[in-house]
């Protein structure tokens, strides 16, 4: 199996010139031509594609000429021959860069540079292109060539995705007798089951390959549709359950913000319309955020508790160990006195309880500790620092939350203040109006008094104030529009309302 078709020559260790060029040529395989890469969902295409080569490769190679690039690629990165971004580029002696495959093919037909027509010899006149070109190519964002896969990555990672991870890559059928290819996601356990064997459709008489069964049910099956009893839509039988649960517009559901207090409970399509502008959405989002924060805090608290208990345990052990070592020293002193060939006293207190941790010390840490005490102390220090970190994080989280709360509340406060000032202004207006009214009445009363003294000749004269505030009306007639007592009282001065 040749190495994956990657333009990786830049990463190869330095080689002598001819062998390096040879390696370029080896990686510059002609672009695969089968369209099953483009249409991996059609098993027939894969079927005809696979057996034609003598040695069936595990994977079809990526056709770099049909890759879809996310952004417009700078023209300088396009091969002048195939007009697509370079794949395994080589630079000629005259300084032009091409895909290795394109220039090989062009030189087969005419041994001159396609750009400046300088005579060129295949392979001999090739150089490694500047690494900056490779870097630029590697950085291009491409879509996975497999149909159905939305994966987007930089081009250098495409091979890995395609070969190892993409669930849509056509791989060999796990059944060694079967020559067809199958999308990786359709390979099922047990691994040797061939997904190409035919089964009969549950709803019609057709025979369908196992791998195509779902597609068949969804799009092709003739006898499998039914009417939804609620919404009258034609639904594929196979999808009926899902339709009723998720799609049917008729059944009544609750607004998704019901956790925030929204009371809407209606048919699905109405609720979906409503959800777009649901006034509870803001609160709902806040609640969600809060739940998330809560979860994180709980998590941290849990960890804190565990750490705390761990620490306590360690302390206890330490105390016990001290006790033990004291005893041991005592004993060993005794033992020294009795028999010098007694086993090393240190091995005595490294008894079973300590062994696992000592193993940790040597293998896990790759460090040698002077003594178990040092090790334990170091561990305690580490634990303490971790605890400090954690409590710092908790405090930060708390601060973060109160900040976000504050940010929510601030605008509300401002609005309240605004409202308050507006009420004040209104109050002033009312007072002013009341005063004006009162003033008018006083004037009227005075006018009436003078009219009665000066006789009927003056009765036609009406004060201008009166015109402003009352509809033209003889003063002898009854009350004013402002007579309601509540209005009067809002004046707040407790003065008796002026009356005629």
């Amino acid at each position, binding site marked *: 199996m*040749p190495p994956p*078709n990657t333009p990786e020559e830049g990463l190869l260790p330095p080689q002598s010139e001819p062998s390096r060029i040879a390696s370029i*040529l*080896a990686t*510059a*395989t*002609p*672009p*695969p*031509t*089968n*369209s*099953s890469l*483009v*249409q991996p969902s*059609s098993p027939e*295409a894969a079927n*005809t*594609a*696979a057996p*034609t*080569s*003598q*040695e069936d490769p595990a994977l079809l*190679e990526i056709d770099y*000429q*049909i890759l879809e690039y996310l952004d417009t690629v700078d023209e300088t990165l396009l091969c*002048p*021959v*195939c*007009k*697509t971004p370079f794949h395994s580029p080589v630079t000629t002696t005259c300084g032009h860069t091409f895909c290795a*495959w*394109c220039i*090989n*093919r*062009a030189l*087969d*037909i*005419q041994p*001159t*540079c*396609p*750009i400046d*027509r300088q005579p060129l010899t295949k392979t001999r006149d090739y150089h490694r292109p500047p690494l900056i070109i490779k870097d630029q190519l590697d950085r291009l964002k491409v879509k996975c060539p497999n149909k159905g896969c939305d994966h987007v990555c930089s081009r250098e990672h495409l091979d890995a995705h395609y070969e190892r991870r993409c669930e849509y890559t056509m791989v060999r059928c796990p059944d060694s007798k079967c020559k067809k290819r199958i999308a990786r996601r359709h390979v099922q356990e047990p691994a040797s089951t061939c997904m190409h064997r035919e089964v009969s459709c549950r709803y019609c008489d057709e025979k369908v390959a196992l791998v195509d069964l779902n597609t068949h049910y969804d799009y092709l099956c003739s006898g499998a549709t039914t009417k939804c009893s609620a919404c009258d839509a034609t639904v594929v039988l196979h999808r009926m359950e899902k339709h009723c649960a998720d799609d049917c517009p008729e059944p009544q559901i609750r607004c998704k913000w019901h956790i925030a207090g929204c009371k809407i409970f209606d048919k699905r399509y109405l609720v979906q319309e409503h959800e777009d502008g649901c006034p509870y959405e803001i609160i709902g989002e806040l609640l969600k955020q809060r739940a998330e924060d809560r979860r994180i805090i709980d998590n941290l608290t849990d960890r804190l508790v565990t750490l705390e208990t761990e620490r306590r345990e360690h302390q206890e052990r330490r105390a016990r160990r001290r006790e033990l070592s004291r005893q041991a020293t005592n004993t060993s002193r005794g033992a020294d006195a009795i028999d010098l060939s007694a086993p090393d006293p240190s091995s005595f207190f490294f008894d079973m309880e300590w062994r696992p941790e000592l193993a940790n010390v040597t293998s896990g840490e790759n460090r040698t500790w002077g003594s178990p005490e040092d090790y334990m102390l170091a561990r305690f220090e580490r634990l303490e620092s971790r605890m400090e970190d954690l409590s710092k994080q908790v405090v930060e989280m708390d601060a973060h939350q109160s900040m976000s709360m504050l940010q929510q509340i601030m605008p509300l406060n401002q609005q309240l203040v605004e409202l308050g000032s507006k009420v004040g202004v209104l109050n002033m207006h009312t007072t002013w109006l009341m005063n004006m009214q009162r003033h008018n009445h006083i004037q009227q009363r005075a006018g009436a008094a003078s009219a009665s003294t000066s006789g009927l000749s003056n009765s036609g004269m009406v004060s201008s104030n009166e015109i402003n505030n009352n509809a033209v009306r003889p003063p002898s007639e009854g009350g004013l529009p402002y007579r309601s007592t509540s209005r009067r009282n809002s004046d707040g001065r407790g003065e008796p309302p002026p009356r005629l």
Partner: protein
Amino acid sequence: MSSMDDTQNSAPGSIPASKTAATSKMGNENATKRLQHELMQLMTSPAPGVSAFPSADGNLLLWHATIEGPEDTPYAGLNLKLSFEFPANYPYKPPTVLFTTPIYHPNVDFAGRICLDILKDKWTPAYAIQTVLLSLQSLLGEPNNASPLNGEAAELWDKDPALFKTKVMDRHKDIEED
């Protein structure tokens, strides 16, 4: 992309030297891919005065193109139509380009065949439809009178520009797009 022949590659590195059936099929595929890219480029960044589009029957190897006659030439204001026929191993081999509009020009004969080096021995795979059209557009203003297909036109070009212009207008006939 239409489902083309599913020819699995032969062993990597074996660059087709002989023209077997397999390689010609593969070439066809590559020609289609390249033409798709060119179509995309023509649509996204069209050059002024020239346009091209695949023929209506969906065959990507057959295109129709239009050149507007450049100002300050006898062809000013005329729309000249051309047909492109691409070989299966395009872009390694040049397309066959013909004027479908009758044109009076020193380097074009009465069947519409064009004498232009880049469409013959000077072709390189770096040329594309757009570059060919632009070359033809400049050929309209600067004919190569040293190797004419239409000797009379080559003579008149220098001797009697007024008569040349009349001949151009007489010969020109707007044709319907098929």
